[in-house]
């Protein structure tokens, strides 16, 4: 599609400068090592291929979470948001989970979505924690606004941290936001935020070489199949 760059200059918001998220590795319950690293804008088309099959999975609200995530990532790719980031988890190069968020302003962050493509390994927990780590420790923010769309998300974030209820409205008209403050984060950190840094050159090279993704049927089976947990 030809792009009118003069118009784009009007439509594209100024991009917030955001310091990078330093990659880390996490050993999962099955012994596999997950590399958690920040995606770059050019990664978006590859990531969307893994999000696509999730759009049609009703179980555990994967449809709504992935539809919103799809839109958010696309908006980032097409320069329609000013401060979005995306972190991803890869095991043997395969994409197993995606989280994204943005800066509401310098002090306040907004958590967008958490999508675990492989299940039963607490990948969602690890990646959500990485996202909070990014906001508070690397973007240097004071607090993060969070809304859960699924009961699993509610249990993982609102109850496990536990987050503080607020009356701050959701930007798409959903339920009121919950809040992660620095105090809550640093109290929860020892039991929820893990990872080893730096990542070995070998693992990093494997992760960066190619974002591999399982085929649609495999993704659907993992999330919504009989053995989904």
């Amino acid at each position, binding site marked *: 599609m030809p792009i009118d760059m003069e118009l784009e200059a009007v439509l594209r918001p100024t991009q917030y400068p955001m310091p990078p998220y330093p990659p880390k590795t996490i*050993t999962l319950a099955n*012994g596999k090592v997950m590399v958690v690293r920040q995606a770059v804008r050019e990664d978006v088309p590859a990531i969307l291929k893994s999000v696509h099959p999730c759009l049609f999975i009703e179980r555990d609200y994967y449809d709504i979470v992935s539809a919103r995530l799809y839109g958010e990532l696309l908006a980032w790719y097409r320069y329609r948001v000013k401060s979005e980031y995306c972190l991803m988890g890869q095991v043997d190069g395969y994409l197993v989970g995606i989280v994204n968020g943005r800066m509401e302003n310098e002090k306040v962050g907004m958590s967008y979505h958490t999508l675990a493509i492989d299940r039963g390994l607490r990948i969602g927990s690890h990646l959500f924690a990485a996202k909070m780590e990014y906001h508070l420790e690397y973007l240097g923010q004071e607090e993060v606004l969070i809304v859960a769309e699924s009961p699993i998300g509610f249990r993982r974030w609102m109850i496990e941290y536990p987050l503080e209820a607020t009356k701050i409205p959701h930007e798409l008209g959903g339920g009121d936001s919950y809040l992660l403050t620095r105090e809550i984060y640093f109290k929860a950190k020892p039991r929820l935020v893990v990872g080893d840094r730096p990542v070995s050159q070998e693992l990093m090279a494997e992760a960066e070489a190619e974002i591999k993704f399982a085929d649609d049927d495999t993704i659907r089976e993992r999330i919504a199949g*009989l053995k989904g947990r």
Partner: protein
Amino acid sequence: MRDVAIIGAGMIPFGRRDEDTLMDMLAYASLKALDDAGLGDKSVDAVYVGNMGGGMLQRQTAIASSLVDRLNLMPAAAETVENGPASGGSAVKNGLLAVASGYYDYVLVVGGEKMREVTGWRATDFVATMTHPQAEYPYGITLPGMAGMFTRLYMEKYGVTREHLLAISLKNQEMGTLNPYAHVEMALDRGGIFDSPHAIVNNPTSADPLHLYDLCPVSDGAAALILCPLEMAKKLAKPPILIAGFGQATDTQTLQERDDPTDLKAVTLAAQKAFEMAKLKPGDIHVAELHDAFTILEIAESEHVGFFKKGEGGKAAAAGKTRLGGQMPINISGGLKARGHPVGATGVAQVVDIVFQLRHELPKNRQVQKAENGLTVNFGGFGNNVLAFVLRRVQS
């Protein structure tokens, strides 16, 4: 009393069966058992359905009546048996007694549960309704919570360690990867759930001192058996499996009213009765399915039924004695830990798994060589209603 044999066994894969209703699952498992028994279009005389939660989770009652209708087993006698997580075992027992008494010849026993119909909060609450309605339930106690309090005492008294519990999680989840009927087909890694600093997130405390991977998953599933008098079974193609022994015992509802809360008297008594009836000793058993809803229970039951002395079960598991090829193979199916625990199905599924073992029809990586005698223990409540069955391969 007549000798009673199992001539048909069937199970559907356990897991999250979103597409199936409770009745679908019960029907599928029943048809598999009917076909396995070679009954074809024939009917049975009676049907016993083990189910705990139909009334609460599906708002459906009189499930057995509905099942005979679906399967066109009319005018067979039919009833649903509710006995908490031992509903399956109780259904087997009712079938056994009905055939043994001489009143019925062919009986279908099926257990099933659809627990993933509701969120984890609701499922936890549903299972907790078996605790004492005034002295326990209102406080927010859960079955894992009961197990946590039991584990603390058992660890202190018998020196069970997390290392011992870990051996059960690792063994059973590894076996689950080999069982096509198992809910959880993921082998665990010791580093990932125990040694690594990342284990704090991967395997968090669930009901202290128990961790996430000490607990069985919440599953949907169903399993079924066909019983008939041994004399009639001898004419069939597959080796009949004799229900050689059966025992059931109860205990106080609350742990605190037991003289020694670490003593699972009902397990000991149920197993003793089953062994006596079968004229066998624990040492004669070649393979066992024990009710490992929590890893501690596999250890405690292995001691209470007499496989190991008190305090030795955990060490035996850690030394690999309960693995396939070990001295006393336990939960080769993956147990509740990996097969899953659809509460009403479990007691039947355990018997189905032992039938597969005693018929010697499993692949090599799951078959206990030359298995002739098997034991199942189905543990209801927190050990306040326990059933044990001794099964024996009949030489034809």
